[in-house]
């Protein structure tokens, strides 16, 4: 799966206070050090071989946006980047994707977007399979018969599925609205496209969390997609976009 390409943020350096017990010094040229609350380098204490991490300009910009929301959310992002870098850990990409999925699923509540407890699809399917296995399909000589009880249960599952998945899309739509630096809403049609994109990004991280195939290159592409998607809302390059829009309008109205 390959994400769409977006223009990336310019690289730059800054010093960002991440949380009460971690200071990240970021520089495009030099790796940064993360120190614990004791002030000692974790590596020096015998932790992971190398926990130093570098943030490019795009990542710093996103980190600031996430820090504005919550330190917890920002820490999920940092955790994902650290896991991605910990190549000595054979499960590092799955862990990185897990952090990002958690981030995506937790963002709505920081915007007060109502998130209903919809339950997990797997749990519902498992319950249905169990029921199916218990089902005696031989009735009145008909070996394909299904009980009314099973049909009711199946209908309930379908109803749940139908009402649950549009809700997830609605959550995505509302979340994207909250990120929009203009403070206004996009037309519904465009919002839907963006919600779809956001759900695709989430879908990749969910699958990779469950150990679906994910290479480092794929991960890098998708995390870049994730970063640029959020920054394009929260820190948009408005005037560059305006230049591009001008070009498209010129193209459309050349002979109009």
């Amino acid at each position, binding site marked *: 799966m390959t994400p769409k390409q977006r223009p990336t943020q310019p690289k730059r350096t800054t010093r960002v206070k991440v949380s009460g017990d971690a200071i990240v010094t970021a520089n495009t040229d030099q790796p940064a050090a993360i120190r614990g609350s004791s002030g000692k380098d974790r590596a020096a204490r015998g932790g992971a071989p190398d926990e130093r991490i570098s943030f490019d300009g795009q990542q710093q910009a996103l980190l600031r946006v996430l820090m504005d929301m919550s330190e917890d959310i920002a820490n999920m992002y940092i955790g994902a980047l650290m896991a991605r870098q910990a190549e000595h850990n054979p499960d590092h990409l799955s862990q990185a994707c897990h952090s990002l999925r958690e981030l995506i699923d937790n963002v709505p509540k920081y915007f007060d977007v109502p998130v209903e407890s919809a339950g997990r699809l797997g749990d519902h399917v498992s319950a249905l399979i169990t029921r199916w296995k218990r089902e005696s399909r031989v009735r009145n000589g008909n070996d394909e018969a299904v009980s009314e009880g099973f049909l009711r249960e199946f209908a309930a599952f379908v109803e749940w599925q139908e009402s649950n998945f549009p809700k997830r899309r609605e959550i995505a739509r509302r979340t994207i609205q909250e990120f929009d630096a203009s403070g206004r809403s996009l037309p519904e049609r465009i919002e839907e496209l963006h919600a779809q994109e956001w759900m695709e990004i989430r879908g990749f991280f969910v699958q990779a969390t469950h150990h679906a195939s994910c290479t480092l290159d794929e991960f890098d592409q998708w995390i870049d997609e994730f970063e640029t998607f959020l920054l394009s809302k929260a820190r948009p390059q408005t005037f560059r976009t305006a230049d*591009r829009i001008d070009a*498209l309008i010129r193209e459309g109205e050349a002979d109009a």
Partner: protein
Amino acid sequence: MPKPDDDLVQRVLQMVQTAEDVDYFFDNLTSPEWIEPLAKAHLFDSPPAPIAVDGGVQLPAWSASRYLGRMAPLAPLKVRDVLRTIPDTDNVRVTQNLVDALVAMPPEMAAEFVPRVVSWLKGPYQLLLPTKVSDLLRRFADEAMVEEAITLAESLFKLRRGESISVGEDGFTHEWPSEALPIIDQYEYERALARIRPDLIAGTGMVGLEFLRDLLVSAMELEERSSQSEKQDLSWIWRPAIEPHAQNDPGMGIRNVIISVLRDAAIQVARADRSLLRLVVGSLESTGWPVLRRIAVDVIREVAPRRSALVSARIVSESSMYDVDIHHEYWMLLNERFGQLTPTQQQSVIGLIRRGPPLYRLTDAEVDDSEVGREAWQARMLSAIERELPTDVHDWFDELVSKGRLNEHPEFLSYTTGMWVGPTSPVGDAEFGEMTDDELIEFLNSWEPEPGWRKPSREGLGRTLSEAVRQSPERYAEHAESFRALDPTYVNAILDAFRTAGGNGVVFSWEPVLNLAGWVVAQGSKVPNLEKDVGSSESDWTGPRGTIAHLLDVGLKEGPSEILFELRELVWSVLEPLLEDRDPTVEDEARFGGSNMDPQSYAINTVRGQAMETAVKYGLWVHRHDSELKSGQLPGFDRMPELRAVLDRHLVVRHDRSVAVRSMYGRWLPWLLLMDSNWTQVNIKRIFPSRQASAQYWEAAWEAYIAFCPAFNSVFEATRSEYLRAIGRLSGSSPDRRHPMMYQQHFAQHLMLFYLRGELELRDKLLVEFFKVAPADVRASALRFVGRAFYRIEAGEIVPLDDPPSQVIIERACALWESRFLAAELIGLDDSGARELAEFGWWFPAPVFEPTWLLSNLGAAVRLGTTVEARHLVARRLAELAPSEPAAVLEAFDLMLRGDSESWMVLSAPDEVQLMLHAALTNSDPTVRAYAEEITNTLGARGFRQFRTLLTDVEH
């Protein structure tokens, strides 16, 4: 041939990231060729709905509808097709654009949307929709599309019955009758109705006129005060003239607006086609309402040709002439058109006037005396045709006039004049100037006012006398003693004139004036055998005694009109009795003071209270002039035992129970300390008694001290324990009855000044308790005071202080701020803490603080969730600091921006923001430039497109 197509629109959709991008796209389209592919991409499907926000509602703009509005003149068919698909919405900012589009397209194409426009008008929000719809209505009228125009007019100008209002209480309620009210905003209604009238009538003629007529009838029927069955509207009272006239009150509701528009419409129809005049008049008169009959008469006067049967029929008409309801319009018609009648008709008119109306046709006032009333009516009618009366009739008219039967405005049954009537004088001040002193005394003693309202009175004469004395104080001062025994009103006027002259620095001889004052004081308060008459302001000597206390106050001030020190004994002899005056009494103080007025203000409006203030001024006057006291070695009151005795005496409650008088001790505390430090320190516990039973005296003195006195260190030393006591009361009810914040803010300022001067430390119990107990607004005012103490604002510019504060003071201020920030951070920022930290906005412009300190503390406060005050000043300082501290400035600005969803800072200081960003964008550090670009783009996303040039300029 390239043309916008589906593919291009899809590319646009891929491109846009924020709502601002979409708005930018739509706002920059110039071709209607985009309409179809955009519609196919569903971009016109979903107008934004109103959004409920904090108890109000937000109506988002829709750039797609703006685009359609712009394109309608270019491609009306395409726009019409899209309009058909757009769902209805209550978002009036959208429907306004849609109506713009309808106005711009051919009316016959817009006609199908009339039902939808009607439904939009019924929505809960209006904004400019009524104006836009009235534009559409005019378009229909222009094309004589009568049905569409009238349908819109009926919807736009529909009326409803308002609520009746009950006024008053305790059984004296009055029901204010309900009035007709528009469905839309009244201002918009009035504007729209006046705007559409010419086009509506030009396009629809009689149909439009009848719509307006019915509208007025509807208004009359919705009025509770109108009598529906008898159709009595009393319009001659609330609408004196149908034509434009100063007597008409423009604020008298929707009926008046409709009347004016209907009158203009009727005239317009009749002038456009004279043959319609009779139809117009008949249409108006058919309703039976008097106000419409009046309009009909007025239209006849305005439009009917000479020698018109319509005119003569109305004038030579007993029912019209005797009709009270239409008097004004009939009188005007008679006045203008009598000369156009035939001689016979004129004779008939005069005959009707001679006969006079039956009694029931007279007004109530006329009926009271029917003969006089009839003659007044006749005079009124004859006055309309005075120029054309035959000689014998004119003689009769003159006779009626000489009998006083003609009022000043015969064209009206009632006439309103607006003027202020005050006490009047029988003579002017120039006449006083010409009288000799003996003549003046004689006149003042002998003149007696006549009873009656608006007749000259003693008070009026006193005012004129006062003005004469003010103009020549020296002349009257020389003979001041000769004014003894005059009425107290005159004496008060004279003494008050000397007070004013002295206050203006005019020099005059004080001794005779003081002798007059001494004589007055010696009389006591009561004047034997003097009863207050209507025209007199003084029935006893209380007023003049109060004036004398003020007069002495003026004379004891340093300046050109200061009393000579040699007159010290005379001054005291005048003042001393006033210090024992019975005013204020306990009863009066309870009634007029208390919660009505703070004790200090009440004191200076009483004789004894003002005399106490004057006594302190007396002490300061002696202190200035007594050579023994100039050395500063002697306790001041040793040289003025008379003052010490007075001050001692009035601190004894059984001698003086007035809290107003006690407030004077607080008001002048620093100066009492100056005059006699020992006496004041010994008596500080008497001035501020600690017993709960005496709390009102403590409160009165303390309140006056805090509210009126600057913070002096010497006073603080003597009153430290009182400050602590006062803190305990900050959280409870406010001591100042009228200006609680003023007292509390002054109190906070005292503490801040003592802290900055080193008299208090941060850990001092006083400050700790203050910040623990004081309400958030008071704590905030303390911090604001400190920030504002380091600069001035002149003509909107920050100006450093002439006398710069020491480094110690600056450091103490910084320590204060840091301690308050830590306190807020420690407990987590709540509303109360946010209120305090918001005041850092007033610190930020102060030029005395280190920029790095300012920026880091601003950032910290904003990061904690503070929305700082004075954002325009903050923005200005940020712009100043941007060249030297670009990264920190950008970070602080960025933080503020993120906490300011309404972008108030950018709106209030766009130039400063531009300067700041420009400095950062041209910085040599690429990181700074990138950050500045990021912020500039964010501003763009919020709709501040003007900053785009910053980026293009830098690129070039």
